[in-house]
């Protein structure tokens, strides 16, 4: 059995992973290449990260990440910055609550799962189920994403999640969306989104740069053009993207379309309540 570290409570102090951790001031570096067990188990890595957070580190640099899961889940330290060098595993930043995570490489599935606030920046691709049920914060992906991205994103009060994808997204983008904004830029020239777009949307909005045909829409979603408020939001999101990745993004608003719910109660009349 691989060495795992199963923390037994908040004040858990252990020695696992100590070979990899070095802290100078408020900056921590965790180099997985130095771990005696290869590859390092995700429980050990998460435990070491939590140690660094408890010591008040404001930045944590991870080197040699290879598939470790659940990194920085529920991380809440204000102002914390985490750099990930390598390939993080599934559920990166799940339930994230404030910090910023920057991935220098590709991410895997379920990045930003149910995130509350904070920021995740991926200098590469992210795959399926990115941003599932996000309730706040921002996810920026330079490359492509996969299937079922942004499912059931929601917004409430001031909290409105946003996601910008530089390349493409596949089928079921924004399914069940109840709030938030997704922007797909299609910069690599391929068809930007797939089918069943916004299926079951009842809130939120999706902006796509490029051609979207009506057959691609899922039930409950409708195509329209952008109003001045939308254009303002899109420009803001473009500027976030450019700041993160430095690429050029055409901001001719006529290239963008909007997908929004066709009604807030698209399925009324579907049920019969007779007392038979």
């Amino acid at each position, binding site marked *: *059995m*691989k060495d795992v570290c199963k923390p037994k409570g908040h004040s858990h102090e252990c020695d696992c992973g100590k070979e990899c951790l070095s802290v100078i001031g408020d900056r921590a570096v965790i180099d997985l290449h130095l771990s005696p067990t290869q*590859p390092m188990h*995700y429980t050990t890595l998460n435990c070491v990260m939590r140690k660094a957070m408890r010591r008040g580190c404001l930045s944590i640099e991870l080197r040699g990440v*290879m*598939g470790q*899961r659940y990194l920085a889940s529920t991380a809440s330290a204000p102002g914390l910055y985490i750099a990930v060098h*390598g*390939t993080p*595993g*599934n559920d990166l930043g799940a339930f994230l609550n404030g910090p910023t995570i920057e991935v220098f*490489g*590709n991410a*895997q*599935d379920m990045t930003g799962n149910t995130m509350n606030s904070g920021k995740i920046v991926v200098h590469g*691709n992210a*795959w*399926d189920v990115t941003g599932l049920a996000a309730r706040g914060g921002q996810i920026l992906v330079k490359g*492509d994403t*996969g*299937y079922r991205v942004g499912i059931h994103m929601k917004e409430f009060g001031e909290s409105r999640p946003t996601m910008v994808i530089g390349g493409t997204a*596949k*089928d*079921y983008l924004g399914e069940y969306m109840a709030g938030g904004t997704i922007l797909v830029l299609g910069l690599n020239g391929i068809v930007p989104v797939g*089918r069943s777009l916004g299926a079951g949307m009842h809130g939120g909005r999706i902006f796509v740069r490029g051609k979207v045909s009506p*057959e691609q829409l899922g039930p409950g979603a409708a195509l329209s053009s952008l109003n001045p408020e939308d254009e303002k939001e899109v420009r803001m999101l473009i500027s976030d993207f450019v700041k993160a990745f430095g690429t050029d993004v055409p901001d001719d608003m006529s290239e963008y379309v909007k997908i929004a719910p066709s009604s807030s109660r698209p399925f009324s009349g579907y049920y019969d309540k007779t007392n038979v």
Partner: protein
Amino acid sequence: MIERTDRKERTDRLGMPVRADNYTASRPPGWQGQPGGCGIASCISLKGEKIGGDRIARMLTIMEERENGLGAGYACYGLFPERRDQYCLQFFFDDEEGKCNAEEFLDGRLNIAHDEKVFTRDRSTISPPYPMVWRYFADVPDHREWRGERDLGEEDYMVEIVQHINEKIPKAFCVSSGKDMAVFKGNGYSYEIAELYEIERYSGTMWLSHSRFPTNSPAWWAGAHPLSLLDWGVCHNGEITSYGVNRKLVEMNGYRCTVLTDTEVVTYLWDLLVRRNRLPLEVAAFVMAPSTFQEISLMPPAERRLAEWLRITYKEAFLNGPFSIIVGRSQPDISLIALADRKKLRPMIAGLSPDEGVAYCASEESAIRIVEPDARTWAPGAGNPFIAVAGKGILRRGTEPSFQGVSL
């Protein structure tokens, strides 16, 4: 310190107890098909060169979160160059009696050129019992008869032999029966199985592998993946909800289900559709993961017509439910096929080495990066097959239109 005086309990990854009795060749009584999650990984040398077993073991074991120690396996293709044209039958025997039973049956029906024990390490962390693992290199005799039929093709004859053994011969189970390939699997973690067979001693042109998270025990060595018939090897992640329908179709066509899992039916479907019905690989993939009628109505006329007739004729071969599968074959060429269901509910990533020498398919990107740090990766689309052939290259990335390359 807690003193334990009773027998050491075997547990899975999460500490849940596992029933102590293991079954090796004979099927456990009351065995039921085991749905569950899994990890799959594969690699193929596009230049026809050799890849060592340590590489596939690294790919699979890094995804250990996907398994719980109740089954894992590897299939290697192109590992017997001196005996490339002979069938390699690799067996599990419960004991000597099973070996005698099988050899008695094979005597006269196949010409055994050579047989040997398959290397396994003496000690392992896997709980006993272990099966005897043995391999036979065989040729099919020119004059052969099966139940009165004299002109059965070589491959159909092999299928009858293998299915008969697995169904009727006690204490013996044939886990692979193809040319220039073999399956190494069992009831343990992916790294335990790699260790048990010393998988790094083998080099092959292509490897498939699988690790499992079944939802119930007891575990059965022969029930682990890859499942194989002739040179078809299948690793499967997911659960087929149309199992009852697919099973009836393969049984109607003479296959006998002995492992009683949905993966077994997937293996037989590839044999039925591609070897017997000669459907091109892209067409067989479409049959198993077809586009919706709405999507079909948007296709150009010739594609639309083919798609409609395929759905009508082969509706019992439609694999419903979430799945990713990797499929290997050695005839006519060593090829790797990867396919995900039409809604892409299970993950599948493809990769290519920078020198375009090796292609990869796996459940997670990290499985590819750990052996090829600078790989270029992409995701094949839903219901869209990835096809790579050793010595030829990637024929299909999995992002093309359904019938590209198929003559209409």
